């Protein structure tokens, strides 16, 4: 069924209604663009006229120049690559492991009750406090950063997925049982597909969290990556570098979020 109809078929009132929606949408977009331009413009103006000191605040034009320079000498892509690699590996491992642990906890009530206090503590603990321990255990460098990223994401993944598994309608489970389903079948044919919506929201949360984990990890131990650039830039007072790296970070996080959104829509259609 295609919902394409000619505009002529609509009544005048409906045309007005459609037009109103369109106008609303356009004005919102225009306002959003205007705000963006205003911030950039004001920033550039105030720093260029030295009302604000560009040494502390950098400026859009300086950020642009820095980005072009670091891109040209190949450093930017190298650092992006490192950070992206750590984030994506951490993101995937944390989501997979967290979901797997949630499945185990769903499977066994006993295990869930026994582990409950540990999970509560682990959830409340600021994971960054484990930084030094991680460095000693897995060594300074990429493995430590990925571990940090996993630690940050995994608890929330496990808790969200578990609560979604446990909230499955009791009657649906009884229905499966009355048709002779075993526990595996209940898991794969009911619990998991039923929690798909929650899984996508966990993915979206983890996009944000994995960036937090990676950048924190890079603050602690790293010789490369965007987090490293930010810390390094701060230490030598190169605010242009700090700001440029932050802008790239914003851009990458957005991109990853959009990709998850596209994945969501693709899978939902089937």
């Amino acid at each position: 069924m295609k919902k394409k109809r000619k505009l002529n078929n609509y009544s005048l009132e409906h045309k007005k209604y459609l037009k109103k929606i369109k106008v609303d949408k356009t004005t919102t977009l225009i306002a959003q663009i205007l705000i963006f331009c205003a911030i950039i413009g004001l920033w550039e103006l105030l720093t260029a006229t030295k009302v604000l000191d560009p040494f502390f605040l950098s400026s859009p034009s300086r950020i642009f120049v820095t980005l072009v320079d670091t891109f040209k000498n190949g450093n930017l892509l190298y650092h992006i690559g490192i950070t992206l690699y750590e984030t994506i590996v951490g993101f995937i491992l944390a989501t997979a492991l967290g979901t797997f642990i949630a499945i185990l906890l769903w499977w066994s009530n006993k295990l869930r009750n026994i582990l409950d206090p540990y999970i509560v503590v682990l959830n409340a603990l600021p994971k960054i406090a484990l930084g030094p321990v991680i460095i000693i255990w897995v060594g300074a460098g990429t493995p430590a950063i990925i571990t940090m990223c996993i630690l940050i994401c995994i608890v929330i993944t496990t808790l969200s997925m578990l609560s979604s598994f446990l909230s499955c309608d009791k009657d649906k489970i009884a229905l499966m049982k009355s048709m002779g389903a075993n526990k595996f079948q209940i898991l794969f044919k009911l619990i998991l597909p039923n929690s798909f919506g929650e899984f996508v929201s966990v993915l979206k949360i983890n996009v944000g969290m994995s960036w937090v984990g990676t950048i924190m990890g890079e603050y602690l131990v790293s010789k490369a990556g965007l987090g490293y650039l930010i810390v390094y830039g701060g230490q030598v007072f190169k605010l242009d570098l700090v700001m440029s790296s932050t802008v790239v970070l914003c851009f990458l996080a957005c991109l990853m979020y959009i990709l998850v959104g596209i994945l969501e829509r693709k899978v939902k259609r089937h």
Partner: protein
Amino acid sequence: MDNYLQLKDVSLSYHTKEKEVLALDNITFSVKKNEYLSIVGPSGCGKTTILSLIAGLLKPSGGEVLLENKPIDKNTTIGYMFQRDHLFEWRTIYKNVILGLELNGKSKDKESIERVDDLLKKYGLYDFKNSYPYQLSGGMRQRAALIRTLALQPKILLLDEPFSALDYQTKLSVCDDVHQIITNEKQTVIAVTHDISEAISMSDRIVVLTNRPSKVKYIQDIKLQDIKTPLKRRESTIFPKYFDLIWKELSNEKKEEVK
């Protein structure tokens, strides 16, 4: 067969930390083959519990449930329908309907699949087999849920207030649909409901339960089988008489509850 399904002195206790609650107390009744039996009773009296016992989802504390003189076990095929249709939103209607077959490794069994196709065609869902549940009306969804249950050829069909989530008009027409399907497919049914009119219009016999701990208070035969559809039965002159009889039994119970 007079004693197709038998409940013999069935009792059941719930255990909570604070106390032990006797929910069912020596329930005894039997169901004939191809009979439609309704259970009515005050709310919270354990009607659904009886269905769970028959389905084998719960074990009785005492007494036994026999189907064709054999105790019910895991391999007995029993159809169970709930208040809501519980169609899985991520499956097409067809995939929903063959869910039971899939669980029992029969989804490639030619005979079973043909039967399902037949049912879908007969009850007007074949054209919608590739639709998703949200695309169907409440009545169609309930029919799909019924076909999903029938696909496994259950020995007995348990209905747990299957019409109570529908609005009144839909309910009347779905009752007719379901009644027709059940009669055609020669199913034996035990239904639980709080709607006396629905029970009278659908059933051959009605069991009235007491407050908790529930006992069988009263069993009423309904002689409306000559009239074909539940909707028409509601117009019969003896319909209100049955209603009064059962209403009296039930309201006595309710008064005792207040005491």
